[in-house]
Every structure is written in structure tokens, then in C-alpha cells.
């Protein structure tokens, strides 16, 4: 450790334990505490419209889902293009319960934290099952396996009466200590619920990566044969990576269901899976901070392109419907540009910025 516990201009690790610290300096810890406090306190000082609260809540849902995808794709190196289906498993767990026992049942409205956990475990079970092909498949072939899960999920939901053929299944309003969470406080309530879950999941993932199991993920990603030779179990590691990703996706899905007070198929399509993948790439594959930056960047980009498309509609000829193309075009362009010029994603910018601040006023 550096001589000054508040500031460090370089790495002075003398033990492996030091290298695994979550906060390297006291100022890191303090700044994080302030940031966290700010995240919890700002709604007391700034009143946002429901529209923007919904956008923020949506970003937080995506953060939880992308934490899972980053685990399997970023840290374990297993590309999954069926992540939205795992999110869907979580959402439909709540929806199915609502359909069977009624959406106003006490389990749905009062025991919602339990429902969220159950959805997470359901996602984990599906993740473990879908992860089984990872024992035998790699690269593009594994992509196809996850894609087929996405297709099977969409078909099952879209055609089975039990799932209302993909149309909305309603979920009742939840009850908190203060009573039923009404329309006026709905988005704020879920902001706090989501933020709490994001913080817990963020720390859980960060801690996992410090453990033997977390380091196994990275080792298997870098070279599974070498990892095998070192005594790790690549097959088990790959399957549990899918299981963990499924768990986080399931939690994200159930919170999505509660946030929208209903579950419909269109939030869990292949397009959404690609979008989660894009969030992971743009944020930074294999970087924990990337799981936060990616969803925020893509969702905000989406909003901006929406406004641009609306504006462009007034000037572009309607026969060509060019405004429709703006969204996929900008989306694809961002992914390509990041892959070409910044494959380590926004997380790398964050790393560079931190290094710069660490050494300031000296040159890097």
C-alpha cells in the first residue's frame, strides 16, 4: 500500500490481498460513498417527471441484466444472444404466478421481494440448462445454442394461451410498509428498489470476481485448456457462468414486470437480446463498470435518436421512411465504431480518466 492512504500515484501492492481490494485508497471509498449517497438522496431535492423516472428505472433494470450478460460474455467469454429470453423467464415467472393465483394475491403484492428472488432462481435454472451445451460447444456454435433458446422462448410465449399469446399479463401494485404503492410514487419507489438491487448485485459481482470462482471465469475465458491443466473445471465454470447470468437476468425481468405492472412478449425479443449485447460491448466487455455505463449510454442514445427521428420526419420525404432507419442505423454505427476504435468500451475511458486524475498535475 502507498505511504499515503488517501492518495496513490501508482500501484504499491505487496500482497495479493491488497491487489484484490475493492477500493485502493481511502479517497476512492469516500468518493464512492458520496456518489452512492447522492444517488439515494437526489430525489429529495429534484422532482423529475414520471417520463424521466421511467427512463432511469429502465436503465437500472438494464444494468442488472447487463451485469449478468457481462458475467457470461465479458468475464467467461461465452457469447450469449438469448439474454432477453432469460430476462423474460424472470418476468414470466411473476406473470405466471399472477395468472394462476391472481395479480392481486398477497404473494404478488406483499411478498414481491420473494417473487423477485424466485424469478432470479428460475432464471438461474434456465441458465444452467441452456449452459449445458457450453460443455461441448464453443464460439459460433454456442451462439447458435443461445439463439435457439431465444427462438424457443419467443415461440412458446407467443403461441401458448397460458402466456396470453405474448399479450400483456397484468401484475398488481405492490404493498410497502406505508401501504399500497400508488401511481404517484410508483416510479420513485421502484427507483429505490432497483437502486438497492443494483448496489447489492454490483458488490456481489465485484466480490465474486475476487474469489476463486470469479478468477476461474477469467481463466477459462483466456484459455480453457490451460485452466483445466491448472486444476480448474472449465465445464462447471461455463455452466455456472450461465446460471449466474440467468439469475441476474431473472431478477431484472421480475423487476421489469413490477415496474411496468405487466408482462408482454415484445420486451424480450431477439432485438432486445442484441441490445443487451450492444450495451455490454459499448460499456466494456469484462469490466464491471462497463455494466453501468453501457445501459446508460445505449438508453440515452435511444432517446436522442428518437427525438432526432421525430425532427427528421418534418424534413425527410415520408415515402422513403428514412426516419425509421435512423434508429437501427445509429445503433449499428455505435457498435461498429466502438468495436473498431474502442473495443474496451466506455469503461476504458473511465480507467484512463482515473489514471489521469491519479497522476494530476503530472503527465501520464
Amino acid at each position: 500500500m502507498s505511504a499515503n492512504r488517501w492518495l496513490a500515484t501508482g500501484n504499491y501492492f505487496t500482497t495479493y490481498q491488497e491487489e484484490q481490494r475493492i477500493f485502493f485508497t481511502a479517497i476512492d471509498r469516500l468518493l464512492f460513498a458520496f456518489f452512492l449517497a447522492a444517488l439515494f438522496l437526489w430525489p429529495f431535492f429534484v422532482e423529475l417527471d414520471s417520463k424521466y423516472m421511467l427512463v432511469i428505472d429502465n436503465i437500472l433494470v438494464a444494468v442488472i441484466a447487463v451485469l449478468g450478460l457481462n458475467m457470461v460474455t465479458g468475464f467467461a467469454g461465452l457469447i450469449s444472444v438469448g439474454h432477453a429470453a432469460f430476462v423474460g423467464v424472470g418476468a414470466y415467472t411473476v406473470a405466471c404466478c399472477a395468472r394462476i393465483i391472481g395479480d392481486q394475491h398477497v404473494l404478488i403484492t406483499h411478498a414481491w421481494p420473494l417473487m423477485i428472488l424466485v424469478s432470479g432462481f428460475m432464471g438461474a435454472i434456465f441458465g444452467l440448462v441452456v449452459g449445458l451445451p457450453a460443455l461441448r460447444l464453443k464460439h459460433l456454435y454456442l451462439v447458435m445454442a443461445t439463439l435457439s433458446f431465444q427462438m424457443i422462448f419467443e415461440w412458446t410465449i407467443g403461441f401458448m394461451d397460458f402466456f396470453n399469446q405474448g399479450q400483456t399479463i397484468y401484475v398488481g401494485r405492490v404493498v410497502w410498509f406505508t401501504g399500497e404503492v400508488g401511481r404517484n410514487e410508483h416510479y420513485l419507489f421502484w427507483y429505490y428498489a432497483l437502486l438497492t438491487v443494483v448496489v447489492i448485485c454490483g458488490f456481489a459481482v465485484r466480490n465474486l470476481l475476487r474469489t476463486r470462482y470469479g478468477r476461474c471465469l477469467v481463466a477459462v475465458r483466456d484459455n480453457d485448456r490451460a485452466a483445466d491443466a491448472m486444476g480448474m473445471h472449465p465445464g462447471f465454470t461455463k455452466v455456472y457462468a450461465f446460471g449466474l447470468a440467468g439469475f441476474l437476468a431473472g431478477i431484472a425481468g421480475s423487476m421489469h414486470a413490477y415496474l411496468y405492472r405487466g408482462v408482454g412478449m415484445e420486451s424480450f425479443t431477439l432485438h432486445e437480446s442484441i441490445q443487451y449485447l450492444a450495451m455490454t460491448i459499448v460499456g466494456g466487455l469484462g469490466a464491471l463498470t462497463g455494466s453501468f455505463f453501457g445501459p446508460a449510454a445505449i438508453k440515452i442514445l435511444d432517446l436522442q435518436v428518437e427525438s432526432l427521428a421525430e425532427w427528421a420526419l418534418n424534413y425527410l420525404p415520408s415515402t422513403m421512411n428514412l426516419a425509421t432507419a435512423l434508429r437501427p442505423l445509429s445503433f449499428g454505427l455505435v457498435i461498429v465504431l466502438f468495436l473498431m476504435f474502442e473495443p474496451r468500451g466506455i469503461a476504458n475511458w473511465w480507467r484512463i480518466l482515473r489514471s489521469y486524475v491519479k497522476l494530476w498535475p503530472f503527465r501520464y
Partner: protein
Amino acid sequence: MKTNKISIWLIVSLVAFMLAIPASSGAKVYKLGLSLAITGPTSDAGNPYAKGVEDYFRYVNDNKLLGQDTIDCTIRDDKYETSITKRNFEEYLDMGIVFYLNYSTGSTLGLKRDFEEVKMPTIPASFHAGNLEDSNYIFLPIASYSAQAIGLAEYVVNNHEGKKPKVALFVHPSAFGRGPVDDVKKSVAAGLNMEIVEVVEHGQDLDNTAMLQRFKSKGVQYVISQTVQSPVAVMLNDASRLGLVAKTFGEKGKFTFLGCHYTGGNDLIALAGDAAENFYWTTSYIITSEPGVGRDAQLALAKRYGRDDKAANSHNYANGVMVAQVAAETIKRAKARGVEITKESLYEELLAMNGINAFYPVTTVGPVTFSKDDQQGVDTLQLYVVEDGNFKSEGTPFIPEYTGKIK
């Protein structure tokens, strides 16, 4: 001198008072919201629809149809995604809208509970009968898809020559498409003398040869579609290529194609070309290929606001104009009653729109009637058929008989 001063002060005070009157009884602005797909899937329908709504409200404001008061309708693109529609709706609520216009079946079903919760009178562009289940605040502008499909089925039964007609249903793989299937089946069970041979949920097929050959082998003579134009155009083109399009209604060994509101219109003719000949289509809207007051009004409105021919002649432009007409008329009536314009008063006004209070917009083939038990606006339908590249009326407006029998 003193008297003069007093007179001047009196005049100044009077002028100030006169000036203050209009300020205190100032013009009101009624906020409305419309969320629809201007870009993305189904934007070919959403685009003219949005123009219709926008133009009619501009017309209302420009011509002072509400006196000094004006309508401010915010139109947002939702890209056919329920999550964006929800966001738009929340924004509209924050803006304090008194009337809401929605678009797709999915988002209408998805937001149904929100409409109930905030008691917001809502008119969607979706005519799905399921929108009305457990709902008090959704009002369909015209007869439901179910009524349309049943109307087409009745036309088949009434005009078919020979034994029981064999019919296939070609539907969109969603609630929008599936909605009428059960109701048509119920009508058959209730005595509508026809056989439903197959119900096909189309995918994004670019070739329907196999399906059409299968229909042929099963003796299907009529295909009733409930979807959007492009899959119907693909099917018509394939049938034409195979020489399977009936030249006259019910021609043996060939298919007679029929479709509900969103399957037809000029876009279908543009997509299918000659293959669209003899396509039977039903809707409650007037069309611009037939002379009439409605056509003249629609074209004049589109011309006034500089719309191109495609938009001006679209039945979805008429669709947009009509819902705007209903919204404006509701406000007008509430104003005439002297009540404050709120979502509650507009809801009450909509429920009173029946009997002698029925509303007659020139853009539809029948009057708009709403009540507590009737949340479908125009109950009458008109059948159109493509002749020489244009839709022509076939018979007079009708109300499907079996819609009442299967209730």
C-alpha cells in the same frame, strides 16, 4: 378642470377594465396526446393517421370551431413499442391531457389498466374487441375487427352459390390478428353456415405458394384476412402467379380474397397491383375513389395543409381525421353544456353520444354512437371491392347480424 380630470380617469379606468376582461376570461387550451408508430413497424398506417389527427386539430383551431379556445395535441412517435407508448402516456399525464389517442393493439391492451386508473377517455387506432373487456374508458372508433371479419363471413355465406362455403382465415400472429378468430368460430357455432377449413398465422413469408396449394387441395374458396397490407399483397401476388385469383365472387376452383380494415386501402393496390383486382375489403370509413361529401372534405383538408396525394387518399388519413373529429366534437359539446373541460366531463360526453346525440362525421359510413354498453363508435360497415385498380362500394352499409347473436 377637475371634472375633466375625473372624466379622463374614468375613461382610462374603463379602457383598462375593458382590456382586462378578455384577459380574465382568456382563451383556454385543451391538451390532448397521441402516441403512435410514425416510424418503425406499421408506420405506413401510422404516418397518414398522425397527419389526419394533426390536420383536423389545426382546422379546428384555425376556424375557431371552439371559439377562442384551442386544442393542443402533442403527437409522439412510439415506434410500435408498448414501453415507449407507456413513457409517452406518462409524459402526457404530466402535461395534464384531458383526452388520449392511442394506436396499436398491444399498447392499448398493455396500458388498459392505466387508462382505468387515471380515468382517461381513450380512442385507439386498434379496433380489437379485447380492448373493451374490463374497460370503461377505451372507445373504439369503428366496428371491431371481429365485427368486420364476421361481416365478411356473412357476405360469403349470403352470396356463395352451392354447398357450404369453405373458408380459410389468414391472420397476423398477434392479438391484433387473432382477435376475430374465436368470434368467427362462435358465429359458425351459432349457425353461420360455413366451414372454417384452416386458420393460418402468417410469419414473414415471402412466398405463400405452399399455403395456397394446400388451401386448394382442401377445397378452400374464400380467404378472409385480418392483418396488414404487405402479407396480403404477398399472398395476392402468389395467387395471381398461380392463376388462383377468382375473377368473379366465389368463382369455383379459385380463391376470393377478403380482408378487414388494415388489409386494404390504396397501399394494398400499390403493393399488389393487378393481383388486387376483386379483393373485397370492409371498413367503416369512406374512401376517396368514390364521390361524396366525405371525400371532398377529406381531400380539401389534406390540400389545405399541403399533404401529398398518398396521404390525402389514405383511409388511415380518414381514420386519423375521424378520431380527431370525435375528440373535438366531445369538447365542443361539453363546452356547449357549460361544464369545465376535464377528462371526467369528456368521458360523460362520450357516453351521451347516442340516439339524437349521435355524431355524424362525414368521414364514416354511419354515425358514431357511444354509451355505457356500446363502446364501438361506428357500428355500420361498408364493403368495397377493387375494380380497375380502384376500390368501389359493393352494396350499402350494413351491420353484421351475428355480432349480436354471439354476445
